[in-house]
């Protein structure tokens, strides 16, 4: 957006004001997220920059909160750090257990959401699909309906069918998270299917490929970027979800967000900031993956590379 040479003084002034406003808005977007990173290395239990930190004095920084993260909930956190210490951490540390639970729940709910969602998206993108609009509206609704309503409904539903007595751990939370992840899968996969050339599948069928073979050899490679980014969205949705877990999760089903929620509500300690920092780094990694996938998908479909 270069300024034309004939621009008047007023326009020039406005142009720079406008750029400054934009810069401030971008700072508003990004600064609050980045600010937790240095603060998580604070040597003091404060949530603000100490004088030592501002002077870049190394003694003002420490990794004690990361250490606390690891040792919190352990039987013998002060024992020498040998193999039994690590075994203790693996089995008892609260945050490690929360991470395990989050990954298990996230994995299974993502598998359910992605497989069902991808198949449904294939059907939805066919021109002959009956009642497309209303079905699409129903499938996207878990994203729109306030989470507290979903959690309330699931609470009544699960207690009426006594899901916790079925003996399958995490089942209620996994099904709920799969439901919440489905809209994202539908949206991303149908987006890659827009402009999908259906003559390709016809050509494959013409040459004698079975529908299954056509799906795996022709359609799947083309929609794969969409499927993967849908799966990532579904996983992040589950990984970040706290309300449903609070309502329907068992007491032993602690996840990372639930642990954070408790930490923030009860007594916020800088250890929360170190969790936040780790999560920010994970989200940067995920964003990079999704961005690369998007470019690949555009290239595959012959759209201009970003």
């Amino acid at each position, binding site marked *: 957006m270069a300024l034309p040479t004939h621009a008047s003084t007023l326009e020039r002034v406005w142009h720079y004001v*406008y750029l400054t406003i*934009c810069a401030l*808005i*971008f700072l*508003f*977007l*990004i600064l*609050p*997220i980045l*600010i*937790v990173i240095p*603060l998580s290395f604070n040597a003091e239990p404060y*949530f*603000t*920059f100490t004088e030592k930190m501002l002077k870049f004095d190394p003694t003002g920084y420490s990794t004690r909160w990361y250490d606390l993260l690891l040792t919190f909930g352990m039987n013998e956190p002060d024992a020498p750090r040998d193999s039994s210490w690590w075994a203790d951490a693996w089995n008892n540390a609260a945050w490690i257990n929360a991470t395990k639970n989050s990954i298990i729940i996230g994995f299974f709910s993502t598998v*359910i959401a992605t497989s*069902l969602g991808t*198949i*449904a998206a294939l*059907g939805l993108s*066919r021109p*002959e*699909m*009956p009642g497309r*609009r209303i*079905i*699409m*509206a*129903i499938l996207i*609704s878990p994203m729109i309906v*306030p*989470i507290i*309503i979903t959690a*309330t*409904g*699931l*609470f*009544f*539903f*699960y207690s009426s069918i006594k899901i916790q007595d079925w003996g399958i751990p995490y089942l209620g939370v996994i099904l709920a998270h*799969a*439901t919440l992840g489905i809209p994202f899968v539908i949206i*991303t996969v149908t987006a890659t299917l827009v402009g999908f050339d259906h003559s390709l599948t016809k050509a494959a069928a013409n040459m004698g490929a079975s529908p299954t073979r056509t799906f795996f050899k022709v359609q799947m490679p083309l929609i794969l970027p969409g499927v993967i980014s849908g799966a990532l*969205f579904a996983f992040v949705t589950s*990984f*970040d979800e*706290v*309300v449903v877990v609070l309502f329907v999760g068992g007491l032993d089903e602690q996840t990372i*967000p639930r642990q*954070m929620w408790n930490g*923030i509500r009860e007594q*916020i300690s800088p250890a929360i*900031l170190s*969790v*936040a920092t780790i*999560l920010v780094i994970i*989200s940067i990694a*995920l964003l990079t993956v999704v*961005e690369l996938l998007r470019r690949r998908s555009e290239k595959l479909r012959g759209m201009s590379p*970003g």
Partner: protein
Amino acid sequence: MLTTVDGKPLKEALAHAQSRAKRRAFLLVLPLLAFIIVSFIFPIGQMLYKSVNNTGFTISKDFGTGVSTPIMTNLAEWFEENPQGTDPDETAYAALAADLVVLRELKAPGQAGTRINYELSGSRSMFTKAARKAKKLEPPFKEAIIDLDEDWADPSLWQAMRTASIAVTVNFYLAALDRKRADDGSVEMVPENRQVYVTLFKRTLILSLMITVICFFLAFPIAHLMATLPMRKSNLLMILVLLPFWTSLLVRTTSWMIVLQSQGVLNDAMVATGILADENRIQMMYNQTGTVIAMTHILLPFMVLPLYSVMSMINPSYVRAARSMGATSWTAFRRIYFPQTVPGIGAGALLVFILSVGYYITPALVGGADGQLISNLIAFHMTKSLNWSLAAALAAILLGAVLLLYWLYDRLIGIDNLKLG
């Protein structure tokens, strides 16, 4: 007549093939649809049922054995025989006494009392107390019961019991709208000092509207900048928008708590630079300001993305044409550019509004007392006061509003056009 090779009329064969294609497409969607109906639509339906059906005063369920027993049957019978407005006579009190004995046996006086307590606070203990002495009561029951607690003669209590003796009720919706049944069964407002819900619904709407408007003013310039910059630069800027979008909600809320605390980064910075004196640090958290700031930040990407996708499609030659014909840059913006962005504004504003109306996590953490939204009250009734029917009624009203907006969104923009990054 045209026929296919095997002799069928062409029209019939085509219709057959088409219906087969339809079935096949539908079969692909069916598993997911069934899943969503079972795991999402049905639970919400069950919640809606709870909002109009409360069996606290009609059925007692033994959770050990799973057996359900009807309770307060004698009283229900009396209510059926005697229309609204009949003064409770000796037979009514006798029925009550008989029912209290049953309650005592089933260990259910607390449950029945709680149900009446929803309509008339302070009445739960009357039930537990009376049930304890129910066996010793002797006729005349009217005097015996009123002897226990003179509030048993209160006409509003009898009105409450009359309503509660039928499981199906709209009273929880009345309560959710700050209304109640008067002693004669008509609907009236609750006393002013107990009106909470309508105010909260209004506050939710006002704050959501405010957040939507702020989001628009923040999103418009940066979306415009990204749409006009060359692709390479705008993609870099896009990352700045998408990173918050991908970052955990709790992380973003925590960050704002760090920034906005009275001993937090922002206040410290202002004190250090001398803008603010140390003793008058601004309280920016645990109030509405905190809720609005944090929610604006969280929902901003939902406004930027649709705006950007519309703006990047706008042909710049229209504005250039207007300028070449003598329009000032302001006129060209106002008359030519802005009208073309309206679809994006509509999409973004509706999305942000829908999402903020039902927001729970951020207000719960940074909202304090006056920054709470309707979702927080639903959670309160679900987890603290345990008035589930009222929670369900509040949720149903919120759901109605959200579905209306969702329908509007589908009508105006189309769900197909929802994009994520």
